[in-house]
């Protein structure tokens, strides 16, 4: 071989020179100008060559979009819609909830009679009826009605085509926070299930922005956490009101939680984009599908069967063994206290500093596999400590909490802890599968946990210092 061809290295140098030159000339506005110019040109060309005969019909979607995604009205409408969904859910769930509770209580009477009739030992009646059945009874009566209303209403909005508009509205905020616009879509998925939403972050191509979406997805409440938020809001936050006002206040509180979740998502995204995940957001095209009249009954049936029953089943399947274990722990005595009481007593000082109590913290820890079981475990924990409580109505439930020293602060902090705390086990497994990194999986556990502890601690300390509780 003769001497190496001299023009090859010069070619590489040529590229280097070229890149340096381009870098020197380029600025952050180039991309925006290019995209804006392409859109503008496309619009002008189409305007000249395309005629819409049925302009009225064609423009209907556009007109609606102009309002629903307007800079001024987009957000108020979004919040109003969300508020209405919560309001319908809470207003509609009260009566079926108490009816279900009555039904379970009525059945329990016969179950107890049956156990007596066959001379079953007391402990068996304790495990199965007082532990398992009563716990599940509460879960079903508290969780089923809101879910059976919330999911279909949400599905109707989704099928109408409103959710992509929400993503469109949120896009601006996420870009401002240094994230990807599609993060709002994965966030919307998170309202259903965070674990599924982690998989959905695959739609974000840039690894940096995808990681951001993964790390912050947990801050929107999922299926498993809605019932906790709704129940606590209605029992404690709206206690001073009656009738319609009560429902309204409850809905506002739940909505407030969602907004806090979104603010935290944006704040954490912003902080990440300035530290561990530096970079400039990439842009993307979001296709807004035409609005469609949803198939009403089809949607309702589907979402009831698919979502409500699925979530309930999951809650029951995981909560049932948890209920039994909780009851057993509560009835095995070590010294003069049960195992459960030992655990609770151990957690209590720390939990109290957060405005919670040992039972609540234990429920969150045991609830790691699935958020659905946090409330059931808490109820079973309280029930197992001797307070014999019939499932009859929701006031009884509130009394149970009050007997354990709850105040509005306990309820508020439990809601906040639920909103902000570590992702459930399934979500963590998915995060590891998607990132293949222990470091990021651990961070996705650590960031929410630190936030949850920090926020509840601060609120508890302030509330106590100010003498509010």
């Amino acid at each position, binding site marked *: 071989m003769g001497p190496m061809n001299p023009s090859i290295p010069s070619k590489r140098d040529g590229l280097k020179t070229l890149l340096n030159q*381009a*870098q020197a000339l380029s600025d952050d506005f*180039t991309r925006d100008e290019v995209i804006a110019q392409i859109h503008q*040109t496309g619009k002008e060309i189409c305007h000249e060559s395309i005629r819409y005969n049925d302009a009225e019909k*064609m423009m209907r979607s556009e007109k609606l979009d102009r309002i629903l995604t307007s800079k001024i009205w987009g957000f108020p409408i979004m919040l109003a819609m969300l508020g209405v969904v919560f309001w319908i859910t809470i207003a509609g769930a009260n009566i079926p909830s108490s009816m279900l509770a009555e039904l379970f209580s009525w059945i329990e009477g016969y179950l107890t009679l049956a156990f007596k009739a066959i001379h079953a030992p007391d402990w068996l009646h304790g495990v199965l009826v007082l532990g398992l059945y009563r716990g599940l009874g509460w879960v079903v009566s508290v969780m089923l009605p809101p879910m059976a209303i919330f999911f279909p209403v949400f599905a109707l909005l989704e099928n109408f085509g409103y959710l992509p508009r929400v993503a469109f509205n949120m896009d601006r905020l996420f870009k401002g926070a240094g994230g990807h616009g599609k993060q709002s879509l994965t966030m919307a998925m998170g309202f259903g299930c965070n674990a599924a939403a982690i998989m959905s972050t695959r739609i974000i191509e840039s690894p940096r922005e995808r990681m951001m979406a993964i790390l912050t997805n947990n801050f929107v409440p999922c299926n498993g956490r809605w019932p906790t938020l709704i129940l606590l809001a209605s029992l404690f936050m709206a206690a001073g009101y009656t009738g319609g006002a009560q429902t309204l206040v409850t809905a506002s509180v739940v909505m407030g939680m969602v907004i806090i979740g979104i603010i935290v998502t944006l704040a954490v995204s912003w902080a990440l984009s300035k530290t561990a995940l530096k970079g400039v957001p990439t842009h*993307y*095209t979001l*296709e807004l599908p035409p609005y469609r009249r949803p198939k009403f009954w089809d949607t309702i049936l589907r979402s009831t069967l698919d979502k409500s029953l699925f979530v309930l089943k999951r809650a029951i399947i995981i909560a049932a063994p948890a209920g039994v274990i909780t009851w057993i722990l509560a009835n095995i005595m070590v010294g003069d206290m049960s195992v459960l009481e030992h655990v609770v007593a151990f957690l209590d000082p720390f939990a109290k500093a957060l405005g919670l109590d040992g039972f609540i913290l234990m429920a969150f820890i045991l609830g790691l596999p699935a958020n659905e079981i946090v409330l059931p475990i808490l109820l079973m924990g309280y029930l197992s400590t001797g307070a014999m409580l019939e499932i009859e109505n929701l006031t009884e439930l509130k009394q149970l909490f009050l007997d354990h020293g709850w105040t509005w602060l306990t309820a508020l902090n439990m809601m906040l802890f639920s909103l902000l705390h570590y992702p459930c086990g399934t979500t963590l497994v998915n995060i590891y599968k998607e990132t293949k990194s222990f470091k990021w999986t651990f961070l996705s556990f650590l960031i929410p946990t630190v936030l949850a502890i920090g926020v509840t601690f601060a609120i508890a300390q302030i509330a106590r210092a100010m003498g509010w509780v």
Partner: protein
Amino acid sequence: MKPLPSTHTHPRSLKQHKKSDDATFRIALAGNPNTGKSTLFNALTGLRQHTGNWPGKTVIHAEGTYSYNGNSYTVIDLPGTYSLFSNSADEEVARDCIIYEKPDVTVVVLDATAMERNMNLALQVLEMADRVVLCINLIDEAKKKGIHINEKRLSKQLGVPVVKTSARNREGLSHLQKVIKEMAYGKINTNPYRIRYSDELEEKISAIEETVLSTFGDRLPSRWVALRLLDGDQSLIDSLQHRIELRRKEVGAHGTDEPLYPVEA
């Protein structure tokens, strides 16, 4: 995923005698998702298709063939994308095919019921290639919705042929094939619409374009490359570097040196 079919290696050599009557032409189909692009691909090629992956990517590569008036045409169904700004593997694949492989004809498929949105991609392709045909598909749906598209005017505006089709009813297919043939044989002169940016940006583009030309010759769409470099398109920069590196190895091994440009991977 199956490995790349061996047939993926392009019959480059055919290009040299493309004017002969038994030439095979390479046609790329670009377009947004949901434009009926794949329907068009199926309608054109029927069962003569095979799929694999693009080299080094987890993006499906579909290729098929058809004959028209004694010529054989290989159709590459590019992934459906909204843009070619290298946001995703799909967009990179489509971009690389258009600028490096330089198909004999690039057909941009547009949804007749959403022309404004689809026009974004068409305008981007027009900045990257000269031999472009616009195929306005789903024209039957547009008619139903009362949308009238003046394709002659559009063609004049954009400087390339515009063909209306309804691929699922096989409407307009033979016309499309005829236009493709004429363009492949160089019988149609195009004057692709190039967007004019602000004076400030245009000045920068001209400055860079000169260096692009001196570095790559006219093997790459110089204006477009200049624009992308100004935009800091890292993915494009990486792929340019990769190709130069490949070329260097190849030349080192064989001791030959043709006019230099990023080579086909």
